[in-house]
């Protein structure tokens, strides 16, 4: 399992771990039942604090991506790809709602939002 931490991106370290482990699960590189390194071992290997690693694992657990069993460690959960996709979709919906709320405050109508969205989407595609 490759996890690479950067100190210059401004993204909190725990969030970097969460997104990389999530990515590995989504890509099928970490399959259901795989044991993750213990919190302390990962902290040692990445030379980061134990509490940071703990926070990352708790977040992954909340998302339903891993299960932690006391005394045994943490394992990739039985969640299938479909379930994970569902989860991600819900997060995406939540973010879209935020955009809608913000647009109401700024009095931007739906057509304008889609315009903006389209522009940004094209830009990302390059």
């Amino acid at each position, binding site marked *: 399992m490759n996890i690479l931490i950067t100190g210059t991106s*401004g993204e*909190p370290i*725990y969030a970097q771990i969460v997104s990389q482990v999530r990515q590995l699960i989504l890509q099928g590189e970490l399959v259901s039942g795989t044991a993750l390194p213990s919190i*302390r*071992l990962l*902290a*040692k290997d990445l*030379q*980061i*604090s*134990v*509490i*940071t690693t703990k*926070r990352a694992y708790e977040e992954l657990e909340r998302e339903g991506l891993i299960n932690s069993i006391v005394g045994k460690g943490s394992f990739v959960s039985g969640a299938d790809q479909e379930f994970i996709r569902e989860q991600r979709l819900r997060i995406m919906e939540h973010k879209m709602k935020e955009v809608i709320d913000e647009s109401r405050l700024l009095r931007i109508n739906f057509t304008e939002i889609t315009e903006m969205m389209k522009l940004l989407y094209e830009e990302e595609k390059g």
Partner: protein
Amino acid sequence: MSDSIQLNHLHKNYDRFALRDLTFSIKEGYITGLIGPNGAGKTTIIKMIMGMVHPDQGSISIFGQENSSDEASVKDRIGYVSDENFFYEQLTLKQMKKVIAPFYSRWDEEAYRKYLELFKLPELKKIKELSKGMKMKFSLAVALSHGSELLIMDEPTAGLDPVFRRELLELLSEHIQDEKKSILFSTHNTADLDRIADYIVFINDGRLVFNETKEALPEKYMLVKGGKELLDRDVRKWFTGIRETAHGFEGLVANRMEGEPYFKNIAICETPTLEEIMYFTVKGSVMHA
């Protein structure tokens, strides 16, 4: 989660310096960094924990025992690395080890050999012939070789080259793998702590500024950089410490939750490093004094 050390309302008066009402605890199973500028009281606190300085008021408990009458059994469980050399200068490492080892009930000769090898320590050299870094390594080797549950180190990384400093940090995370051992170390080289410390105790001018998980600090503190026209009397109140130049200002805000919405569209908002938190807090306290 239990505490390995608890300090309760410690007071100590010296001529030109005082520790005032210090209360904090060190958590079992974690690495705690003690930071503060020179003369803040870090070494005095460590000496109090080690029973080498007695507080005027207040109490200290270690492993749940208060001001223990059975000091030797408490010391048996502590590995101590001082910032001064407290070994006999005239002895060789080998002779010195023979003097120290019998004091510890769980002296682990095998572990000691391992560290001797790892740190490349010359057993037959006299202590006075060692460099500062080498003395520190010897002190570390002893502290790590008697099954201590609590490692207390005063400025252990001072005098160490960056290569060994990194190796030391790795040794420390190795040391706490079993969830039972705790580490307290003081330093003013905050870069060491940016990496592996779980908790940060910040002391300034004999007082506790905070005892927090390092993880929580980016949510509390924010570094703001902006043009000087932003600084009116009310805005200044946001800042714990501020540095102004002809080209603008940078300042530390200790209440990020409230400060960020105000500053985010008119200035640059960043997450400060430990060093920046320390610098601006100390600067601010001098300004207000």
